[in-house]
């Protein structure tokens, strides 16, 4: 919608304007300031701010001819451009930017042999060279200047009387030279992808280096001060509408379009201009067609004036109005030019760039598996090319990762911006008992050996026993110390082998859980965390060694013990309305509902869970903090579970969550 409004506004604006001479005329036409800008980079005529998309080095050569009475050909220009970081430097030599005028003065004299000699004048206007500089302040904003050196030479034949023994006349040429620097500044701004704006001065600084002109000053290039405003709208991806307006009421308008191939593009530009000193209303057009690859480009362009071949004017017109532009004036002829461009890239092209990066979770070293599946950071990455690319993200947490950790490749469409996840691996040997702040180096690469971009962010690495308070992450503590716990549990069960042998097999799970509880948890002490806000969970072996812990530690230990002998457990997260929550434990007795009566005569002491084979199995809840015997822990556990999960509908309302450990 906004694009359409802008496009229509531009067309109405064009229609309502009176079109005058275009001072910012460029031999290759007017190209948009978007990605096709490589084509215009050999010109600073319509690009006062020296806007450039050249990545490193650029060399351009334009050769062409002017179709006057006799066609003349010339090397129009040779330019060199170099980009260093955000700066672009430009230099051009313009031998073909020259316009010569021959005048017959109307005065003549008769020579000795009776022939007549006419006195002539020749005025030559040249641009010698130009330089430019621009600086990219932001990705969408650049500022720059261009300065050009011009030379004007005025030769007039005069007859000089010489007084000696006899009076005679000498024909001689009086020459006056004038040079001046013309310097302008400009800004380019692209607020949104489909709109580019530019503003630049015209003849802002006019510095004469030679002021010894006395007789021909009225013939110098006219250099009125002013400003120019450019706009490019892209209503469609492959169409740019361009317009440049000068405060002297001149403008040039046109469009660019093109087709992209796998490694090249074919582009077309047509620009129309009007000159108040020329007829007809549309003075001429500048068509250009360009084929561009990554390193090479060829552009064929031309200027066609609609006034016809007769461009003779009286000298008085020249005397009063002169010329304002060497290449485009009322005395210009049709032209054609062939421009060959080379782009040499000696630095790695940054195909992808990290715009922003967010640490989504601090590092909890106990959560080994979490970081393999859940990213610890997400980077906003932009594809700066016009092709789909594969981006390989990687990272290294300094003082934590020994090596660079590679995350899965992500495909990014041309010019698209995506969120890319970064995963990491917790080293087995990490055992720091203090929180530390470190830095993460993030890299993205589109090649195998070089990084396209790098980003650094601080990150908190928590101590080894740190827990983020999410019950689901207690599973990571439960999985630790497997070998130690299996050995520990087996020793206890072996001591009770005789009792277990008397049981029917179906009851063994229940009784193993009972024996382990009564021999481990029952003998421990409940120790509340000294600081309730300090989330610290003991690994199972630490709880055994300390013979105590809080509800998290005891639930983790009991779950670890049961899981390691093959008894399925689940944590119950009782979420608090506010303040502190609670955790207790469920385990699968593996009894069928029909056999539940073997362990209890009260059907409120268990509940049924269907496994993924569709089989109903009896589960019971255990309150590990009771530190009494198993039967009491069962009673306390199931009462709380029945009350909060079922009677108060906590499970359905999300206030109670069952988190299966495996």
């Amino acid at each position, binding site marked *: 919608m906004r694009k359409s409004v802008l496009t229509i506004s531009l067309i109405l604006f064009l229609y309502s304007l009176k079109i005058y001479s275009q001072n910012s005329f460029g031999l290759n036409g007017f190209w948009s300031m978007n990605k096709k800008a490589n084509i215009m980079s050999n010109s600073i005529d319509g690009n006062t701010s020296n806007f450039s998309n050249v990545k490193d080095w650029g060399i351009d050569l334009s050769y062409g001819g002017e179709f006057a009475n006799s066609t003349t050909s010339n090397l129009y220009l040779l330019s060199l451009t170099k980009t260093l970081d955000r700066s672009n430097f430009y230099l051009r030599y313009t031998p073909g930017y020259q316009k010569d005028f021959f005048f017959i003065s109307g005065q003549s004299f008769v020579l000795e042999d009776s022939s007549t000699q006419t006195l002539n004048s020749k005025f030559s206007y040249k641009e010698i060279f130009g330089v430019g500089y621009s600086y990219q302040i932001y990705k969408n904003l650049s500022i720059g200047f261009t300065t050009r050196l011009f030379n004007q030479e005025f030769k007039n034949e005069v007859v000089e009387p010489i007084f000696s023994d006899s009076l005679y006349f000498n024909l001689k040429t009086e020459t006056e030279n004038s040079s001046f620097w013309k310097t302008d500044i400009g800004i380019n701004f692209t607020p949104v992808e489909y709109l580019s704006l530019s503003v630049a001065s015209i003849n802002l600084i006019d510095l004469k280096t030679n002021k010894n002109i006395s007789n021909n000053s009225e013939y110098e290039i006219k250099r009125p001060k002013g400003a120019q405003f450019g706009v490019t709208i892209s209503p469609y991806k492959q169409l740019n509408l361009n317009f440049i307006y000068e405060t002297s009421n001149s403008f040039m308008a046109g469009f660019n379009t093109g087709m992209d191939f796998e490694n090249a593009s074919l582009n077309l530009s047509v620009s129309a201009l009007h000159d108040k000193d020329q007829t007809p209303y549309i003075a001429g057009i500048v068509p250009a067609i360009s084929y561009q690859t990554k390193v090479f480009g060829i552009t064929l362009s031309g200027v066609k004036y609609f006034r016809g071949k007769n461009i003779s004017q009286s000298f008085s017109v020249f005397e009063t109005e002169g010329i304002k532009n060497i290449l485009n004036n009322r005395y210009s002829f049709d032209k054609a030019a062939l421009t060959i461009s080379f782009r040499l890239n000696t630095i790695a092209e940054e195909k992808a760039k990290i715009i922003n990066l967010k640490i989504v979770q601090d590092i909890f070293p106990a959560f080994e598996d979490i970081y393999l599946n859940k990213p610890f950071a997400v980077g906003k990455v932009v594809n700066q090319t016009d092709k789909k690319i594969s981006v390989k993200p990687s990272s290294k947490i300094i003082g934590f990762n020994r090596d660079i950790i590679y995350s899965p490749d992500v495909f990014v469409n041309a010019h698209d911006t995506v969120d890319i996840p970064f995963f990491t691996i917790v080293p087995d040997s990490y055992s720091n008992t203090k929180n530390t702040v470190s830095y993460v180096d993030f890299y993205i690469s589109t090649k195998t050996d070089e990084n396209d971009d790098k980003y650094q962010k601080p990150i908190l690495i928590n101590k080894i026993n740190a827990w983020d308070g999410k019950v689901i992450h207690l599973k990571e503590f439960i999985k630790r110390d497997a070998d130690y716990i299996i050995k520990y549990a*087996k020793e206890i*069960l072996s001591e009770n082998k005789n009792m277990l042998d008397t049981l029917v097999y179906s009851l063994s799970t229940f009784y193993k859980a009972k024996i382990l509880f009564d021999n481990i948890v029952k003998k421990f002490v409940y120790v509340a965390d000294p600081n309730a806000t300090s989330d610290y969970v003991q690994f199972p072996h630490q709880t055994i060694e300390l013979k105590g812990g809080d509800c998290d530690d005891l639930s983790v230990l009991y779950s670890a013990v049961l899981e390691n002998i093959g008894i399925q457990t689940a944590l119950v997260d009782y979420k608090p309305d506010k303040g502190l929550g609670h955790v207790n434990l469920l385990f699968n007795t593996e009894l069928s509902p029909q056999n539940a009566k073997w362990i209890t005569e009260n059907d409120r002491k268990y509940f049924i869970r269907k496994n993924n084979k569709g089989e109903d199995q009896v589960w019971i809840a255990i309150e590990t903090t009771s530190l009494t015997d198993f039967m009491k822990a069962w009673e306390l556990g199931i*009462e709380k579970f029945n009350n909060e999960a079922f009677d108060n509908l906590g499970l*359905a309302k999300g206030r109670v969550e069952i988190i299966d450990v495996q």
Partner: protein
Amino acid sequence: MKKILIIILFISGYLSAQNFVIVKVNGDVKAQIGISEKWQNVDNKTQLDNNATIMTSKNSNIVLMLGQAKIKINNSSIVSLKGIKKLTIDELLLALAMENLINVPDKIDKTINSSNTAVYGKEINGNTKTIIDETNFGIMRLNGAKQLAENGYTESSIVEAMETYRKYPDTKSLTNYRIFFADLLISKNLYEEALAEYNDISALNLNDKEKIHTEEKINFLKKKLLR
């Protein structure tokens, strides 16, 4: 840190308890208090709150008052007094949804014990002595659920019935009970749930009358759900 004092468990349980007044006891009526394993005899002086579960044997019944509400529990029934409460339709739907929430997620398939553990005990030989008659106990639960409905606690009645099916799977084959509770779902306009229940029922051994009733209800529910 997830912590709570155990005492809070008891306090909260105490505060939420509703006291029932025994109006009349006829015959052999027993009660199980909370999660106690024992059944104790009930007489007019017994204190009952909603933690209790009442069991009436053959030819016995009990009449209770909860506030102004009078509840009669007839013979051969088991009723958890916690179930004597009014539920909204939304609460009923949440309770029914819990059936799926409680199940083990699909990714978990761990019915086999770890192989690194010693095997204790012998395989069951089928002659194990049972403490209670499971099917009978289930039927008594369903009778209790029926009486909740008859006393005006339809939503609680449905929840109790579904819970009984899970804990006493053999009761799922009792077609007359299944039809009774499926019709309760219809009475509460829970057509999707009722259709699922009737589809289950249609796979059971039904007599001719039940077959006709089931087909009629399925057609009725399908039409309702098509609208």
